[in-house]
């Protein structure tokens, strides 16, 4: 059990983190610190890191480049559009998620593969190589009443049919 002083410090840091990450307009907070930037121009973006030594990109952001061991990588917003590398329909999950849902790995142009929910796609309509774009989705509210926002991917082009 932490002493009372330590708890106070933790709460203060936590509050500050939320305050700096909250979207000024909506009061929304990312589902996890340092992953999703809601304030970038042109829409939300994933927060990755770029190695100033060799140019490699990573997501989530890392401190050290696994290719050349350069330290202190630059934080950069990643491209919003990528292609589906592979996918699955999860039909049995944990109590935290309601199955079925479509999950996929998306390759971004920076050479980063990101796992995410695929939305706006009817069952059987996901394909390897399909172009998808980053989107956000609500994931409930936190203790302060701020909306928690997660990320997902949806088709870059509207699909035919009535389930897009």
């Amino acid at each position, binding site marked *: 059990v932490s002493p009372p002083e330590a708890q106070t410090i933790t709460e203060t840091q936590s509050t500050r983190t939320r305050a700096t990450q909250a979207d000024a307009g909506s009061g929304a907070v990312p589902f996890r610190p340092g992953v999703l930037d809601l304030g970038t121009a042109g829409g939300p973006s994933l927060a990755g890191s770029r190695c100033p030594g060799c140019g490699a990109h990573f997501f989530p952001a890392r401190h050290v480049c696994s290719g050349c061991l350069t330290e202190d990588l630059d934080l950069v917003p990643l491209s919003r559009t990528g292609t589906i590398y592979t996918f699955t329909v999860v039909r049995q999950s944990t109590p935290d998620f309601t199955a079925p849902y479509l999950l996929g790995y998306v390759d971004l142009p920076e050479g980063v593969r990101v796992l995410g929910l695929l939305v706006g796609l009817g069952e059987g309509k996901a394909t*390897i190589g399909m172009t998808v774009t980053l989107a956000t989705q609500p994931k409930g509210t936190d203790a302060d009443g701020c909306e928690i926002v997660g990320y997902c991917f949806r088709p870059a082009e509207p699909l035919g049919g009535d389930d897009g």
Partner: protein
Amino acid sequence: MAEVYVIGVGMTRFGKHPDQDSTQLGVTAIRAAIRDAGLDPRRIQAAYCGHVFQGMVTGQRILAQIGLAGLPLANVENACSSGATAIREAYLAIKAGEYDVVLAVGTEHMTTRFKGALTPDPGDIEAAVGLTMPAVYGMRAVRYLADHGVRWEQFAAIPVKNKKNAALNPFSQFQQPVTREAVLSSRPIADPLRLLDCAPVSDGAAAVILAGGQTARSLAGARGIRLAASALRTGEVPVAPGSMSFEPLTAATALDAYERAGIAPADVGFAEVHDCFTIAEALRVEGLGLFEPGSYPAAVERGRG
């Protein structure tokens, strides 16, 4: 350097054991291994305990129950490789010349810890996004089928083979053979994986006793089995994302083991392979160099798996 032999093995039946905890399961496995070795337990000099979800000092709890408290012991966690890593640590301790007789035990009580699919560690972002372990392998399967031009129905031969083997094994969880039709009509879990493509949630334990060459010959005579090599690697964080339908990590680790043992894949006559999901079995045996990439499903269909 010292040669290392397996001189005793023991295990519980795998399955649901609501009346026993991981300590009791571990005790059962170790006592069986000691009996199998015909060993005075006081000759055991050190122990390693592999587990993932059983909490602090699991190995110490087990040793206390069998009169071996006080031995040098380390608990090791390496996900699905925890038990194998415990054996490796025991092997290295003997090879280093520090000990002569070492115990390795793995124990897990999963049915009290999981409802539904296993997930990554809650601290991993993948878990927060909705990843389950079956989903990992479902996605690998989708990519494998596309990359190798394989039909998913071919994979049904894998659980048919494994359940046929399990029916002959008194320690296996499910001892009934299954048909191809039953596999392909079982409940969907993470497309294309169905229930019979997935490892069950199990409780169980297994133990081995290892000894240096001279001791092994005096204790076990010709019964000891030489442990020719142990190789361990961990996954990298790739700078560029790689193929998910072949496992370079498995291939590199296998190469380490083959080189140390002085054999080639063609020399392997029998393989017991981690098969948490049917697609995993294909990825592993192909990574091990026992089959060409993409060739395993067809080989199993022909009865050559």
